[in-house]
């Protein structure tokens, strides 16, 4: 059963100390006027608490953008084990926790991805509450409350943080600084509940997701795909930023002498025209319309076999990072569902 | 050899220079009857290429004139456009441009001295030969060139064709940590620069021209030695603002070459390291000055083969200046560097000329902008084009003097002579002027 505590915001540096003692702390920092990224930080002051969404989701910490899997020299093949060190991932919002849940399912299914799992295991995840902006819609896809995937989840209840602790490691983290934690009082519990009720009311856009998979299939030939596809740049910005996209390429990097080398895996995107092309030049998704529709279906309808869940967690990253403005998931869903354009939401 | 014998010296392709050129000398009865330096690099018509483009695109496009001095082209273009728009860059921007430019000079000079010219002096036909027989020199080259490349990469984004230089300023400031890395590299390279000078001083030029050329160079903006300026000075005593370049620089096409030939007030001229040193050597910083004053250059021996020595002295000076610039930047720049918040400037019709001292000499860019900020006319004059007439004259003087030498030796000497100018034929052909009307 979860345990609940509170600690004053003023005490945060102490909490930070506890995290650093465990390992490298990774937290959102500001990287440009509008953007944030998870980076190693050495003091609480560097953390951008206001960050809603980082450019890349936390998946990069477990499933790096580029990673060497194997090395070979002559006939000897050797696995390049990931350099796994204890770390604390701080500031993960509910949508990203859900996103990690999706990747956990994929990478732990047989045959499991040992590198991903090793990094995941060595990481303490500290979640953090947030207030939705005009691109957030996690409540529409049911990922708005933190359910699992964290060790500690902090909710901002004004002057203090309400900490839900979900694992022995999390508990140890909190207890490593004596006097930091108080058991959550009745007031604090009330404040906690108020926060989440208010947060629920704060969503500016959204849709009802019940019939979504069926609608997406029903609307396979909807003219909207053609309309959006016309504008699609096939730049692939939508996939690396998505917490649940995991496609990759594997390539050989040979040394100059040719007798040794490495096998490297790198993030790939289904939006590139070569992605599905097979020998003989046949391409199953030749145009941007095909690829965009494929992506939408995967996000909103999801897997049919192994996992059976849709893969959009409502973080809004694709919407904000699409240069052409066509990854407006909420707007598209509303149109597919037959509602008005932008109903309940804001025009972008 | 009888007096009535006709001879020709033909070098179909001068190697170890950038681009393609050929030399042809006719000797008639012991007298040189004609000399042609044929730059047969393909023409690219840059002043046409830039036409119609927005001024923001110009530095990136003109960078492609030449890889080795791309930074020079980028800066000359930026200076010209900024003048047309009537804006002045901030002092921080100027310092960063200067640093980038110094990086280019170090890289270009080092590559020319070691990889292109040195084989002449030591008789190494190819690079692997040089690398195996002169590993120390090869390593010097690597280090100096890496230094120049590192400066350009940290400030400009890559070793050449910089991406961080724009009209109005930079898009990203370097971080202190990176600048400090450069400082460390600079201070460990000074010795190498000195030893490069010593190396070149140890070679005796096999031939010499007989007349002093007209030297032309920009008057450095500051009181020190430098490579940016708005007026040009001639060894004949006159000074002119760069804006008036049409009046003092004459240009004409020759039928046998893709490069035009220039004259300064009607005379063949020489630009580049030697010109700069002969005009402004007294302004050098203490390190370079000590080498310079002890060199044959200071005592008036202006054999063009000493141009390589002049380049080596400039490397010393560039290292010294780069250190000074970085010290200033460490005070002016935010610790972490980062985005500069550069904004696009409102367009304005106008005309502007800009010039910088490139490794090979003064480079001029001149643009007219229409009221939407698009290029309506362009003109560029490169140092290599300015030098061609003087190279031909040098060849004539050398052949006349040494006409009795073995033809093979003479031919080799001529190649060395042409190479000493470090001609950049890609530049020479890519920049030729259009008429304004």
């Amino acid at each position, binding site marked *: 059963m979860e345990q609940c505590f509170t600690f004053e915001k003023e005490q945060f540096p102490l909490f930070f100390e506890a995290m650093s003692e465990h390992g490298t702390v990774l937290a959102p920092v500001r990287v440009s006027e509008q953007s944030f990224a998870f980076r190693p930080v050495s003091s609480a002051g560097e953390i951008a608490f206001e960050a809603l969404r980082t450019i890349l989701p936390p998946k990069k910490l477990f499933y790096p953008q580029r990673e060497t*899997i*194997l090395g*070979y020299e002559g*006939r000897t*093949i050797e*696995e390049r*084990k990931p350099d796994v060190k204890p770390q604390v991932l701080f500031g993960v919002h509910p949508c990203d926790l859900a996103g990690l849940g999706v990747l956990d399912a*994929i*990478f732990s*299914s047989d*045959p*499991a*991805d*040992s*590198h991903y799992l*090793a990094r995941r295991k060595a990481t303490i995840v500290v979640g953090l509450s947030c207030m939705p902006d005009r691109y957030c819609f996690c409540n529409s896809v049911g990922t708005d409350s933190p359910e699992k995937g964290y060790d500690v989840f902090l909710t901002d209840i004004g002057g203090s943080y309400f900490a839900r602790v979900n694992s022995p490691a999390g508990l140890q983290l909190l207890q490593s600084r004596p006097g930091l934690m108080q058991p959550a009082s009745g007031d604090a519990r009330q404040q906690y509940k108020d926060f989440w009720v208010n947060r629920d009311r704060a969503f500016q856009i959204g849709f009802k997701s019940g019939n979504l998979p069926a609608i997406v*299939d029903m609307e*396979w030939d909807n003219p909207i795909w053609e309309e959006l596809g016309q504008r699609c740049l096939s730049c692939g910005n939508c996939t690396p930023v998505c917490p649940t996209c*995991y*496609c*990759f*390429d*594997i*390539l*050989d990097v*040979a040394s100059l002498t*040719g007798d040794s*080398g490495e*096998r490297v*895996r790198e993030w*790939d995107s*289904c939006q590139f025209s070569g*992605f*599905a*092309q*097979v*020998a*003989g030049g*046949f391409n*199953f*998704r030749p145009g941007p319309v*095909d690829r965009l529709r*494929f992506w939408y*279906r*995967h996000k909103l*309808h*999801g*897997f*049919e*076999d*192994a996992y059976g869940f849709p893969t959009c967690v409502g973080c809004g990253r694709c919407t904000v990072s699409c240069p052409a403005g066509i990854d407006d998931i909420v707007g598209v869903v509303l149109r597919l569902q037959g509602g008005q354009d932008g109903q309940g939401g804001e025009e972008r | 050899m009888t007096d009535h014998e006709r001879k020709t010296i033909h070098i179909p392709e001068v190697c170890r220079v950038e681009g393609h050129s050929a030399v042809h000398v006719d000797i008639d009865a012991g007298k040189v009857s004609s000399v042609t330096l044929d730059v047969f690099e393909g023409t690219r018509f840059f002043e046409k290429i830039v036409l119609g483009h927005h001024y923001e695109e110009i530095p990136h496009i003109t960078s492609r004139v030449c890889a080795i001095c791309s930074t020079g082209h980028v800066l000359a273009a930026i200076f010209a456009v900024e003048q047309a728009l009537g804006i002045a860059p901030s002092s921080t921007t100027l310092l960063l441009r200067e640093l980038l430019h110094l990086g280019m000079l170090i890289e270009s000079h080092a590559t020319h001295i070691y990889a292109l010219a040195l084989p002449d002096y030591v008789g190494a036909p190819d690079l692997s030969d040089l690398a195996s027989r002169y590993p120390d020199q090869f390593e010097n080259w690597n280090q100096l060139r890496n230094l120049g490349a590192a400066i350009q990469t940290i400030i400009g984004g890559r070793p050449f064709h910089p991406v961080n230089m724009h009209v109005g300023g930079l898009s990203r400031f370097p971080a202190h940590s990176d600048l400090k890395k450069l400082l460390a590299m600079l201070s460990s390279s000074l010795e190498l620069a000195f030893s490069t000078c010593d190396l070149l001083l140890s070679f005796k030029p096999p031939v010499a021209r007989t007349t002093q050329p007209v030297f032309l160079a920009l008057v450095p903006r500051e009181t020190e030695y430098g490579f940016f300026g708005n007026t040009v000075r001639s060894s004949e005593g006159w000074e002119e603002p760069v804006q008036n370049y049409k009046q003092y620089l004459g240009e004409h096409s020759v039928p046998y070459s893709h490069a035009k030939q220039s004259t300064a007030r009607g005379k063949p001229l020489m630009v580049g390291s030697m010109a700069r040193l002969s005009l402004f050597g007294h302004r050098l910083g203490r390190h370079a000055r000590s080498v310079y004053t002890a060199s044959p250059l200071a005592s008036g021996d202006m054999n063009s083969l000493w141009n390589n020595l002049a380049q080596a002295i400039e490397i010393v000076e560039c290292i010294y200046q780069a250190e000074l610039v970085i010290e200033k930047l460490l005070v002016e720049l935010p610790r972490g560097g980062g985005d500069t918040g550069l904004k696009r400037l409102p367009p304005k019709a106008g005309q502007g000329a800009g010039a910088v001292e490139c490794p090979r000499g003064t480079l001029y860019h001149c643009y007219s902008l229409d009221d939407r900020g698009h290029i309506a006319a362009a003109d560029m004059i490169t140092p290599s084009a300015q030098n061609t007439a003087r190279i031909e004259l040098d060849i004539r003087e050398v052949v006349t003097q040494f006409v009795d030498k073995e033809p093979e030796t003479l031919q080799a000497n001529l190649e060395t002579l042409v190479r000493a100018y470090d001609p950049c034929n890609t530049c020479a052909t890519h920049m030729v002027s259009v008429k304004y009307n």
Partner: protein
Amino acid sequence: MNALKTPFFPVHGVIRSIIELAADNRLFEIQLQEPNGLPRCRPGQFVQLWIPGVGEAPISVCSGKVGASMELCVRRAGRVTSALFQMQEGDWLGLRGPYGNGFPVELFEGKDLVLIAGGLGVAPIRSLWQYLLDYRQKFGRLILVYGMRHSIDLLFRAEFQVLLRRRDLDVYIAAEDVVGPQLPTVSFQLGRVTDMIKLAQITPGFQAAVCGPPVMYKYVVQELRAKGMPDSNIWLSLERHMKCGIGKCGHCYVGGQFTCRAGPVFRLNDLQFLPEAIECA
């Protein structure tokens, strides 16, 4: 080694023999260095073949039995396959697998079967017929249809000469264009795979196993349906771009499924629920 071993770790294979089957098509016999390296390989499965320094390519297992060695029939298509064509007997390479579901041979037991191969699609189909013939008595009537554009592209010529003589197997070989340097020793019929299906005595109770170029499926399915065959009896082996073979890299994703895991062999009536799977579904 240990539980943390990455699934991308290959086993060693050594090329034991190379046979030229047709221009740009070769049969490689590969000796597996680790006897347990590729456990229990079924007809229709594939392996990821790795050439160090070049990369991997999915290749169907082409022999009915996989013990200490297996056969792969490869067409030179690009980087990896060209590099393979430069290799010689005794060279080593890497293999991962076997991957995919393969053909449902248990389900086929006791049934009449038609195997339909187009072009290089004959590679996985061969593993199936070799298996079926090994256990001939378990299956009903067997029809083998194999089509290609030019008769000189015929693969496994020698094997077909033997197959054509068998009484317990009907073989139809079609080429759209029967010319070549020498007249083929295998009897060809002029036409396409679909024409052969028309000719063959296929009844609605047959099970069909099909593999060929992407464009072929539509016409073959039409023909089989015309014979009254229900979609549940039609099994198609699909080709998709694949990088990992283990349901992770996403390249082979079709509809909501990974071809490399749910396939490459799909039952036609399942494909109908997968958008983009094949044109006719």
